[in-house]
């Protein structure tokens, strides 16, 4: 049997048109490429300043 009150609470408001512009221009969601770039940056900071070295590192 469904708990209706709980079920209703699971519904979330839809974004309204006034919010759309902010969402579009502030779309700073981090994706896997960002994670990858972050990892590379960290690797660079630890002495591997050339991306090619990453290749070498990963291929080894």
């Amino acid at each position: 049997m469904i708990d209706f009150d709980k079920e209703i609470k699971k519904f979330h408001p839809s974004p309204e048109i006034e919010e759309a512009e902010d969402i579009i221009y502030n779309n700073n969601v981090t994706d896997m490429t960002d994670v990858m770039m972050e990892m590379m940056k960290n690797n660079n900071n630890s002495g591997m300043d050339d991306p090619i070295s990453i290749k070498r590192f990963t291929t080894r």
Partner: protein
Amino acid sequence: MRCYRCGSVLSDADFCTGCGVDVTIYKKIVKISNTYYNIGLEKAKARDLSGAADILRRSVRIYKQNVMARNLLGLVYYEMGEYVQAFVEWGISKNIKPEKNIVDKYISDIQSNPVRLDEMMNNAKKYNTALMYAQAGSDDLAIIQLKGLVGKTPNYVKAAQLLGLLYLKEGQYDKAEKILTKILTVDVNNTLTYKYLAEIEEYYAKNNSKKHTGLVGAFKKKKDGDRKELSGNDVIIPQTYKEGNPISTGIVNILVGIIIGAILVFFLVTPAREKAVKNEYIDTINEYSAKIAANNITISTLQTQVEELEAEVESLTATIDAGGANAVTEYDELLAAANAYIGGSDVLDVAELLVAVDTTAVTSEGFLACYETLSNLVFTEAAATCYSMGIEYKNNGDYESAIEYLYKAYTYNSSDVNIIFYLAQSYKGANGWSNDENSKKYYQMVVDNFPDSELAERAVSEGELG
């Protein structure tokens, strides 16, 4: 695929030929994102919109610059009635790839109908308001809001699901089943919809009030048979989406049209028609009233004329009756006089009878001719006789008798000056030889009618007319 650092087109090699950067991981990330896109596309083709949306969200979460996945995600949102979210995805896509992006066509198609665009943009607000009502416990208000929303946007999956849930909460299982079944044709594999339908199935099974067996399975079969698969090039944006039985929809539309027509006739045409009929009726009444008034005047006039004519008829009848009676009397008197004359009666008696005849009451020429003849025969002789007797009485000093006979003589013959003169003298003698009114009248008559006669001068002196 382009290098994330320098933008050069990547080759099959694991590094960028432009800047030399290692792109192995990058390529794997893009590949995974594209794999999700392909899965999402397959689901979208099968109209598993909620499943497609879930997969496509993962695709863009892995690689946010996957424009194809984002565009398809926007299309899926659009088909599910989530217009603002669709615009958001397409807006991001446009920012990523400003040129040669298919979303330009999507957006321009939608913007070509500003009214529809405005409605679509307000859908989210209406849904949020309804959700607020529902979460506050005002289910009735929420249902009213959602009914209007789903009526205008039948493919708004989330709104239909919330409406179905509220119907379930209110115990209106038939309505819940109807709305959920309908929305299942838009999103054929929505787990939340199936969850609510299972609840309905369970209710029917418990209450045995309706035969519902294999409800969920039936919907699964239905999705394979009814819905057309989407191809990769399909554009869902324009209102090409149709649902339901076209025959039943057509019948419903006809019925709605008839009802609207009837309402328009009732509220617009009928009052105008009634007013026109009423005005026509009033005009007719006025026309007939005028005619009746004119007829009344005519009747009154004719009645007056009838009364006048009746009075005239009565008058004429009375005149005729009286005239007839008089005429008869005059005829009798003339006949009596003639009879007396023929019978040899005294001329004075005949004259007496003739004097009594009123010739004005009879217009018959024969009667008048007879009277004239008889009077010529009688009156001259009677006048002479009376004159002689009157002169004799005067000479004897009997003036009263003289007046009697001389007056008769005057009556029978008024053209004899002697009769008139001696009548005047008799009146004077009867008054002791002093003139009175009668004597003067007849002396004056002698002077006036016979001025050249010898007796005229004597009349002046005796009558003291000077």
